[in-house]
């Protein structure tokens, strides 16, 4: 298994313990790597022992000798692993997931609080002959409280350091979804790195997750903040954006990633009509009513990736072939 290319990021889900259950052989020319967990970092040395509490910075580099064999039964907490050169792993790297039986991931409700018949909406529930509709079940019934997001949604605003703010706060940088546990980037309208209008190509160098096609690294255009044609780190693609956000940090976290299509869908408020945006803009301002990239490739085509269209709430597959769409990164979850 080959992990990584120049300046690439291997994002392992945060808060997931990664016991190395069997030997892993790391080899490759001049391996450099850093492992960060956002707040503190662990340093890899030749024996892969970890020193808790080391501060991780974007420039910290750990050099591994070629052919280092990692002993058994070492546990890592490492959401972000960045390899600066190709790394070859032999053997099995077991990523232990928490038992799903004990930790279900609740789904967000849809936001729909009215019933319908064949031709009309906004009817009181129940409607005779149309039993058991969306609006009669779920958090939109049991937790219908608009103070923390429309109907069953429950959001908490976070400041630039990740501290919770009251819902009345007028300035915030991230939002925690209290149902799904995910923490979301809030877009800005300041022309900076997080600006809502910035466009990206879809790009991923990870063959296990990129659907069989990497996409485009460079659109040859200044479609995002700080684009420099001479600096690949500033190219306007999704992978470079995630690395830039993690290097700079946002809301105190360095383990941001692209959301899956289901994670994007979790934010959709289906009660809102097109042209949208179909999201609670009290918590997610600067949301374009347009398509946003997910991390989820379309299985039917190596150039396809799922998009969530916040203009009406549906999802469809867009092309990695230099298509330009918007991005909102996420962290946390399972």
């Amino acid at each position, binding site marked *: 298994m080959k992990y990584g290319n120049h300046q690439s990021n291997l994002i392992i889900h945060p808060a997931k313990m990664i016991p190395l259950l069997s030997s892993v052989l790391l080899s490759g020319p001049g391996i450099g790597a850093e492992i960060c967990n956002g707040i503190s970092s662990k340093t890899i040395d030749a024996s892969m022992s970890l020193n808790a509490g080391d501060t991780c910075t974007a420039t910290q580099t750990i050099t591994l000798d070629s052919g280092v064999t990692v002993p058994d039964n070492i546990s890592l907490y490492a959401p972000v692993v960045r390899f600066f050169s190709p790394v070859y792993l032999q053997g099995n790297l077991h990523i232990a997931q928490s038992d799903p039986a004990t930790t279900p991931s609740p789904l967000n409700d849809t936001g729909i609080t009215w019933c319908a018949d*064949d031709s009309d909406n906004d009817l009181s529930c129940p409607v005779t002959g149309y039993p058991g509709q969306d609006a009669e079940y779920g958090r939109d019934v049991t937790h219908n409280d608009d103070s923390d997001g429309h109907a069953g949604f429950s959001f908490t605003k976070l400041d630039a350091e990740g501290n919770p703010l009251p819902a009345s706060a007028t300035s915030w940088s991230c939002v925690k979804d209290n149902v799904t546990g995910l923490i979301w980037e809030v877009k800005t309208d300041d022309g900076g790195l997080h600006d809502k209008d910035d466009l990206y190509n879809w790009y991923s160098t990870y063959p296990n*997750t990129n659907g069989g096609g990497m996409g485009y690294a460079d659109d040859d255009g200044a479609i995002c903040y700080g684009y420099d044609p001479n600096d690949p780190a500033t190219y306007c693609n999704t992978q470079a954006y995630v690395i830039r956000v993690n290097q700079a940090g946002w809301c105190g976290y360095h383990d941001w990633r692209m959301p899956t299509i289901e994670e994007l869908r979790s934010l959709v408020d289906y009660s809102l009509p097109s042209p949208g945006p179909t999201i609670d803009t009290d918590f997610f301002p600067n949301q374009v009513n347009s398509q946003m990239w997910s991390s989820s490739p379309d299985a039917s085509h190596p150039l396809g990736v799922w998009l969530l269209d916040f203009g009406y709430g549906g999802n469809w597959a867009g092309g990695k072939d230099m298509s330009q769409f918007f991005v909102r990164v996420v962290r946390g979850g399972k």
Partner: protein
Amino acid sequence: MNRFDFRPFILWVALFLVSVGAARAAQYCSSHIPRSTPDADFVDHGDGTVTHKETGLMWSKCLLGLSGDDCEFITDDNIHYTWQEALEAAEASTLAGYNDWRLPNIKELASIVELACYAPTINLTIFPNNPTVYVWSSSPGANNYPRYAWVLSFYLGMSDMYGRHEGNHVRLVRGGQ
């Protein structure tokens, strides 16, 4: 007057078509996409129901109108339902002795999409003989689509809206928050 009953014949033709369809439409799964609904995430209760441990939702193993361990038997010669018929059929179902079956909302329905596969985009071990068809959700379209409701295509995994009078398939769900 003694009329010839076409119903068994139609049933056998339909069964043949479903079988041929299943054989012809070979599912493709990509090795470059992580599985979103691996077998281990489900408990098959052996009574036509499965529980998705990720969400806690219980699902009918077969689409409404199909039955059997591999959903190979057709128990209803019309497995297309309008949105109203789908809501009523879910309400009336007593599958596995439960009387609280309902249609899934669109987020619940999308939670069993297998993102690594298509044609169909579902785990066929857990949900066998799933034709690549549109399945109804309980979620009506918003106010500029008052004659539509959300469906999910289990061919590619696209969500879309369909006219409430049109016929689509039904998978039952129960439980959840």
